[in-house]
Structure formats: C-alpha cells, structure tokens
C-alpha cells in the first residue's frame, strides 16, 4: 500500500511539471467526425488495403519466427552475464527505433521490417524462454540413466513440458508482432500503418475505421488461424508475398557503420589528438544538455504519469469482464471494449487523442493508460474468475473493495511493475508524434540525417530502460511479488 501511495504521489508531483493541456480550439468537431467515421467504415477506400493487411501479417510472422530462431539459442546460454546484458540491450530499443536504424542500412525494404521486429523480440524470447526452461520440472533428471548425452536429456526432460509454454508465449508475441508490424507502416513500410497515417492526416476516418476493423478481426481470430503445423506454410507464403525489391547497396551499409554513426567530431578529425577529444567532449555536452537530459526528464514524467493512469484504469476495467461482477451480456460488452483497446497499437491510440487535444503530454499519457490498463485489466479479470468466494460474500461495490481488491492487490502490483518498462519504451516512441520525449529527439536526428546523434540518444534510451527494468525487478523482489512469465 505504501508503495502504491508513493508512486501516486510521485506521479502527481511530476504531473505538475509536465505539459498536460488541451491545445485544440474545439475538440468536439474532431470527435464528431471520428465518431461518424467509425460507424461508416469504408472498406473500398484503398485498393491496396488487402495488400497492406497481408503485408502486416507477413512481417509479423517472419519477424516473430526469426526472433524465435535467434532467441531460442540465446535462451540456452542465458546463464552467461554477457548474453543477458546483450539481450537486455537489444530488447530495450523499441521496434520503431530499430526500423529507423535499419532503414539507413537496408533502405525501405522488407528486410528492414522483418529485422526491426526480429531483433528486439529475440531479446525478449531469450529472456522468457530461459525463465520457462529454468522453471521446468527437474525431478525426471534423477531417473535418467547416467551417460546420457546432454542433448538427449534436454530433449526428453526439459523440452516436453516447456514446449507448451513456448507455444502459448510465442502466440502471445505474434499478437504483439502484429501490432508492431502495423506501426512500422508509420515509418514508410507497406503495412497498414502506412495507410493509417495518410488516412489520419487527411481526416478520412471512414478509411481509418475500415483498416482498424480488419486489424481487430485478424487479431481476434488469431487462435483460429495460427497452428504450429501451419507455421512453416505461413512462413513460406509470407516470404513469397512480401516485396523483395529494394535499393539496398553494400556501400550504404558500410558507410553507415564506418562513417555515419561516428560522432561528428571524430568524423571530421584528421588525427586523434587532444583537439579531437575536446571537440568530442563539447559535442557530447551539447547533446546532453540540449536533448538527452530534457528528453530523459520528460520521458520519466510521462512514464510515471502513464503508469499511475494505467493502474487507475486497470482497477476500473477488470470488473468489466469478471464473472464476479457482471452477467454474460455485461461481460461480452466489457470484453469487446477491452479487446479494442488492447489491439489498437498505443501509437495509433496516441495519434487519435493527439488529433483531438493537440500536442502535449496529455494524449500520450491517456493513450498509454488506456492501452496498458486494458491489457492488465484483461489479465486481472481472468484472474478473478478463478477465485472462490465464501458463500455469504457481499455484492457489488462492497465485494469489490472488501474482498476482491485486497486479494488481488499483490498480483495487480506484480503485473504493473512488469509493465513499467514496457510503458517507458512506448513513452519514448511516442516522441515521434511530437511529444518531447527521447523519441522526439531521436526522430528529429534521423530526419536531419544526424545518425551519430540518433544512435547516441538511442543508447541513452536503452540505458534508461534497462535501469527501469532492474528497478522494477528489485521492487518486485522486495515486495515478494510473483507472477507468471506470460507478460513481458
């Protein structure tokens, strides 16, 4: 309880310093137009609509598959510190930042899209898979005859039980992959984000509605169309479908690594001497005071406000789908509401609120709180379904406050802390929409072709993320919070 109040207080104080305001003159006009659009979806709007949807699915499947293929071997050697640090680093950089980096190397090609998903996901898979393997039942080891090869032991003793968890987790990740893939369209890849961006900017809300509805259907039906046996087929189809043409040249890539990302003073220096070193120092100092530091501050403010907002909304959302509070009809409505909030990428959600309220931290915080609140609310709701109540338990609000809430509170905190780092990663990325978090400076650096700055800021962002991640696991350990691995 003390922890929660502490976080609430921090958020309120930070909120006072943050820039939370509505800057549009009359948000109601835009709301009306959006509402009208959402009830008149226009499925014929773009001819490329189907292509965009299939591209979105293809990038997601290939990215998640490659992420698995890279992440699984890493999971096996996860006990080495260097591997853990490496994985923590690659997963602390958001897919969109990876996409911006790969864009410079591979251009606007499919490879950029696939790698942007695969690389951070590999880091996540490595961590989660190693946790699953660690938790596998060790008892059978005792009965394995001595002299059995390690591979045989691994395949017979550890894999079978872990396999089920691997499948569940990979499916959940594919759902995330679809969202990531959709958002990659905003940097120019041919997924639905590309069409969403142009539709949004032209105010064609019927087209937006059509794209989002198709996207929800694809995600909602994921259990129907994804099956382990079909995955190889999907991979082949996806490889055949996505465009492979591109302007990739090896020179570009070499140039990027050996020249573009070098800090500017090093690039122009003729020799490495004291003058270069002091120029480098000045370069770092400028970026730090002008961009990195303000970026870090606003990223932290937004993250903390969004975290507390997520907590508040979770507490409102979870009863909506719980058998303890609503009948079938009420719950179905609740489910639909939460599914829509969950499936809409936070980036798109933020864009919608941004159009309504103008640029400030407000739309970003609200979008993050709604999206993450829906995710945790969904998990909490399902969790309460398994709870057994005493026969004379109270009903309604009394049940909520005296029975359910106190019992689920530790679980609730555990989920929130898990989500903390995710929220921070998303906060950084929302900078691309114009809110002055780290992502804003990174995006501008890319736009100005100052890749050295961009890379420096990305590394800062990654370090910030890793700090939050360790802080969160420290607090979880302190409070002895445990949860399943299913949501990183």
């Amino acid at each position, binding site marked *: 309880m003390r922890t929660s109040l502490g976080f609430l207080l921090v958020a309120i104080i930070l909120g006072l310093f943050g820039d939370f305001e509505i800057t549009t003159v009359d948000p109601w006009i835009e709301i009306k137009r959006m509402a009208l659009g959402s009830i008149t979806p226009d499925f014929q709007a773009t001819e490329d609509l189907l292509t965009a949807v299939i591209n979105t699915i293809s990038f997601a499947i290939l990215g998640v598959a490659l992420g698995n293929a890279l992440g699984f071997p890493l999971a096996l050697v996860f006990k080495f510190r260097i591997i853990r640090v490496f994985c923590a680093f690659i997963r602390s950089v958001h897919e969109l930042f990876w996409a911006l980096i790969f864009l410079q190397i591979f251009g606007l090609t499919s490879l950029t899209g696939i790698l942007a998903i695969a690389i951070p996901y590999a880091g996540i898979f490595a961590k989660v898979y190693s946790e699953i393997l660690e938790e596998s039942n060790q*008892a059978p080891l005792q009965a394995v005859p001595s002299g059995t090869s390690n591979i045989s032991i691994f395949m017979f003793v550890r894999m079978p039980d872990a396999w089920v968890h691997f499948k569940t987790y990979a499916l959940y990740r594919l759902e995330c992959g679809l969202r990531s893939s959709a958002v990659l369209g905003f940097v120019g890849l041919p997924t639905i984000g590309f069409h969403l961006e142009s539709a949004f900017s032209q105010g064609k809300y019927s087209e937006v509605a059509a794209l989002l509805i198709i996207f929800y259907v694809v995600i909602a039906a994921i259990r129907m169309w994804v099956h382990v046996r079909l995955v190889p087929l999907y991979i082949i189809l996806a490889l055949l479908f996505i465009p492979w043409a591109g302007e990739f040249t090896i020179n570009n890539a070499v140039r990027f690594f050996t020249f573009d990302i070098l800090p500017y003073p090093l690039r122009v220096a003729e020799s490495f001497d004291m003058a270069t070193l002091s120029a480098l120092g000045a370069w770092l100092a400028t970026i730090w005071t002008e961009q990195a530091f303000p970026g870090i501050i606003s990223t932290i403010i937004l993250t903390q406000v969004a975290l507390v907002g997520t907590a508040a909304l979770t507490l409102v959302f979870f009863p909506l789908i719980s058998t303890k509070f609503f009948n079938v009809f009420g719950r179905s409505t609740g489910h639909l509401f939460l599914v829509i909030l969950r499936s809409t990428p936070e980036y798109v959600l933020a864009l919608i609120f941004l159009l309504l309220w103008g640029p400030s931290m407000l739309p970003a915080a609200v979008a993050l709180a709604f999206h993450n609140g829906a995710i945790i609310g969904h998990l909490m709701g399902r969790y309460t379904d398994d709870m057994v109540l005493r026969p004379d338990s109270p009903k309604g609000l009394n049940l909520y406050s005296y029975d359910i809430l106190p019992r689920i509170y530790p679980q609730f905190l555990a989920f929130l802390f898990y989500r903390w780092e995710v929220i921070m990663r998303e906060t950084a990325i929302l900078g691309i929409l114009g809110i002055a978090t780290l992502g804003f400076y990174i995006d501008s650096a890319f736009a100005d072709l100052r890749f050295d700055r961009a890379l420096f800021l990305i590394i800062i962002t990654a370090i910030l993320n890793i700090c939050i991640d360790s802080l969160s696991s420290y607090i979880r350990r302190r409070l002895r919070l445990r949860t399943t691995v299913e949501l990183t």
Partner: protein
Amino acid sequence: MSFLELKNATVSYSGTQVLNDLSLKIERGEKIALVGQSGAGKSTLLNLLYQKCKNDAALVPQDLGLVSSLTVFHNVYMGQLNQRPTWYNIANLLKPLQKEVDQISPILYQLGLEEKIFEPIRELSGGQQQRTAVARAMYRNSSTFFGDEPVSAVDDHQSHKVLEAISISHETVILSMHDMRLALKYSSRVIGLMDGKLVMNEPSGNLKAADLDHLYKH
C-alpha cells in the same frame, strides 16, 4: 566383500539428523524391504545405497520423476536413453519407432498398462503413473532395482503383479514399503528403521506382519 555396504553412515539435512550411525551389508541376490514410519529415513537410506551402484541400477524415486507431457512410451524409453545415439533418441521422440514400441509393449503388458502406451502422463491416474515409473526402471535391464514405495498408489491386485514382475527380472531388489503383508511376501530380508536408526534386520521367513507393528507405534 559385500555387494553394498554402509559403515556408520550418518546423514543430516540442515541440522536434523536423518540417518544415525547406520551400518548395513547387502549381498547380491537379496530382496530387501525397508520399513518404518514416514520420516524414519527410508528414502535417504535408499538413495544413499542407489548412489553407490547407480551405473547398474534402476530407481523409482518417490516423486516418480516422470515428464508429464510425454507419453507412457517415451517415459519408459527414457530408461535406455544412454544406450542409443542422440539422433536416434530425437527421431524416436518425434515419432515412436516400431522397433522400440515392440520392446516396450511386453513390459507394459506385464504391468497392465499396454492400453495406455501412447497416452500422456498427465492424463493417467496416480497408480498408472507409478506403474509407468516402474516400467521405465524395468526397461533399463539393470541387475539391481531400487524403489521408493513403488506401489503405494497401486491397488492390491495390481500391486502383486508389479512386485512379482520386479522380483523376477532383477537379481537384487531393494524396496521401501508401507504395506507389511506385501513387504513380507516379496522380500527375503526386512530392514526396519526408526528415527534414523536400524532397529530390525531379520530374514522375512522369521517374521509375521504383527512383528513389524512396533515400528509404527510412536
């Protein structure tokens, strides 16, 4: 030199003494029943003896050590995992090879499990799981068999079948038991433990079930 010998063995876990100055000899060909209250040190003694000859011994541990998502067939096959090349093991994991099925089926038949051969362990009852662990141990084809209460969840009729099968196919058998009638019937010697001390060491022929009662009054 005896087949297995303990001299003044003392074992303690986190300060609590589980075996106290225990000396014991076991010869090849003996069928030993370990009896005593739970907590008397039977499992510890059994594991201690097993460690001494684990290269040619099969073990049914108390928690069975089965892989719950694999089938009965695969769990039994694990008894000979060290006998085959790794690629062969993996091939057999992906698709049961007929040759292996033919070898494992007779053992399952002896234990009344032949119909369950391709069912995953988690679908089985406690007794069926226990018999699977026994089948895995038998499939090792070792000369010595260790079992930690291997029939505690198996019904009376099946228990006789299982103990019979274990007895016939192994030269030396060491079982911890809680059913006195079964212990006497399938052993040549009874070793009784109380509070980690050896309190009985008699040929089974000299004993009646009632003689073992005092081990359990505490």
